[in-house]
């Protein structure tokens, strides 16, 4: 009798634990939804006063007059992201192919941890480097060849710093994709007499195109959301940039920079939370799509 009770107690404990764990798992699934709802509730007041379209298409940002045009910030974000991807992608493709197809294991043993370190460096340190090295370099060395004046605090500086920041992410995904390509496929190409480079060019790159696109989309969403580093080098002037040497003011920087004052003006906090919501939704969509693509690739290749 006693023994039976004991067994019952054990099973009860098991079921209890199971339910707690299930609850936590569901909570983690709902977290994205909760974040979305939370941000939406906070940004509802401004959406009540202005239409979403008028907010994102207007370039007039005068919080004290109640004008909240997001266009400069959206353009700023797009500029730095575009520059970052244009710089990072070719470097990553070349380096990723080198590391996974050509590099001697000894080279990989040295380079891989260094890429890890690059991935681990905090954004604020990238920002310090950007302000110390990249900004003066752009302002004093590069810009004078092209424009009359640039302080160096520009979307180009932001793009360069951001490019270095997203490189480890892209490389690690690329090397994983290349490693997932079956050996037989390489053998098939090599055995008709193709060189290694031809095999890479015609077979490996083609086979990994969906993965490369997914990696780029992930990198874009990382770049969209990066805050502190770009905040430190972009200049933060609310204007639509017209050249790479103009200052820009990306969305996340806007949120981070104004948190102090945002409680003092009506709708200001609501506008900033809307900015966060816009970022969140775009990144959520991008991330979900590219992760699904990547998971599919992993499954399909793992024969």
């Amino acid at each position: 009798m006693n023994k039976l009770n004991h067994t019952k107690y054990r099973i009860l404990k098991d079921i209890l634990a199971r339910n707690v764990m299930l609850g936590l798992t569901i909570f983690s699934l709902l977290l994205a939804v909760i974040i979305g709802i939370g941000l939406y509730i906070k940004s509802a007041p401004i959406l009540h006063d202005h239409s979403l379209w008028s907010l994102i298409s207007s370039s007039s940002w005068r919080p004290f007059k109640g004008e909240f045009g997001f266009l400069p910030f959206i353009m700023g974000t797009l500029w730095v992201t575009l520059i970052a991807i244009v710089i990072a992608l070719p470097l990553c493709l070349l380096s990723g192919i080198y590391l996974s197809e050509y590099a001697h294991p000894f080279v990989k043993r040295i380079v891989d941890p260094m890429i890890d370190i690059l991935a681990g460096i905090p954004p604020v340190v990238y920002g310090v480097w950007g302000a110390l090295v990249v900004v003066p370099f752009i302002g004093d060395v590069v810009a004078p060849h092209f424009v009359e004046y640039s302080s160096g605090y520009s979307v180009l500086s932001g793009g360069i710093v951001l490019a270095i920041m997203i490189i480890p992410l892209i490389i690690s995904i690329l090397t994983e994709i290349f490693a997932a390509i079956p050996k037989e496929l390489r053998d098939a190409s090599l055995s008709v007499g193709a060189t290694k480079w031809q095999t890479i060019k015609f077979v490996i790159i083609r086979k990994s195109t969906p993965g490369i696109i997914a990696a780029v989309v992930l990198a874009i969403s990382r770049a969209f959301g990066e805050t502190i580093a770009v905040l430190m080098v972009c200049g933060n002037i609310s204007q639509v940039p017209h050249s790479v040497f103009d200052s820009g003011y990306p969305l996340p920087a806007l949120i981070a920079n104004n948190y102090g004052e945002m409680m003092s003006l009506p709708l200001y906090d609501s506008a900033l939370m809307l900015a966060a919501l816009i970022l969140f939704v775009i990144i959520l969509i991008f991330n979900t799509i590219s992760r699904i693509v990547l998971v599919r690739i992993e499954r399909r290749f793992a024969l």
Partner: protein
Amino acid sequence: MKTMKYPTEENYYDEVLTIVNDKNKKTMPSSNSNAPHISVRNLNVYIQRNHILKNINLDIPNKSITCIIGPSGCGKTTLLKTFNRLLERSNEIKITGEVLVDGENIHDPHIDITHIRKKMGLLSQRPCPLPMSIYDNIAYGPKIHGTRNRKQLDAIVEKYLNAAGLWDEVKDRLHAPANRLSIGQQQRLCLARGLAVEPEVILGDEATSALDPISSKKIEELFVQLKEEYSIALVTHTLRQAQRIADYIVFMYLGEVVEAGPAAEVFNNPKEKLTREYLSGYFS
């Protein structure tokens, strides 16, 4: 008749064209038809310090089917991969001894490795179509080696899809992705792809083991047809297949060649006790 041992790239394709234009002509450039096509002399292969192939001496005869049999793990596949030097892509491989193809040592450091691989069409265990259309799969090799002319490529694609018995099945959808084909069709496509670079030798690594019986019968029939023009070396661990199609048998055990000779002789009257035991199913 034109016989050339090592065609250069330029006249090689002229020759392909004449072959394409004149199907009755003897197709393959090759050496004296009685000499062994591949000769292996004192070959030793170590992978991560494990002695995988031990002092292999072996001839793959010209224009016939040689089946390499033996229990799994005996080094059959490793041996096959040393023939077209696909093995050394992995780390920590050490190879000593010689593999002579047409009297030329393929491990000679001065040799162009792609030239060696072009001579050998590989058919792997699992069909592995390249991520492109049916047409491009066949045209891939010739394009790599410099054929750009569309008409030439069309002719090559048709010729080798025919040779693999696939033309009638796919001629209406040449530009569909190759991975839409059934697995048996894919394997014949891979065979056609290998043939399209005009190899002299076909290497098959358990090429029918992933296929259904009907598809593997088709592949076997193709091999029998193809031995008129090519030397064929097949790794197989289905004894029945070897009995059906082999002209010569090589029996390997634990990295060594135990017995080699004409198929009838090895099957009916094996010299070694080990061979006898393997053939009668004592171990597999």
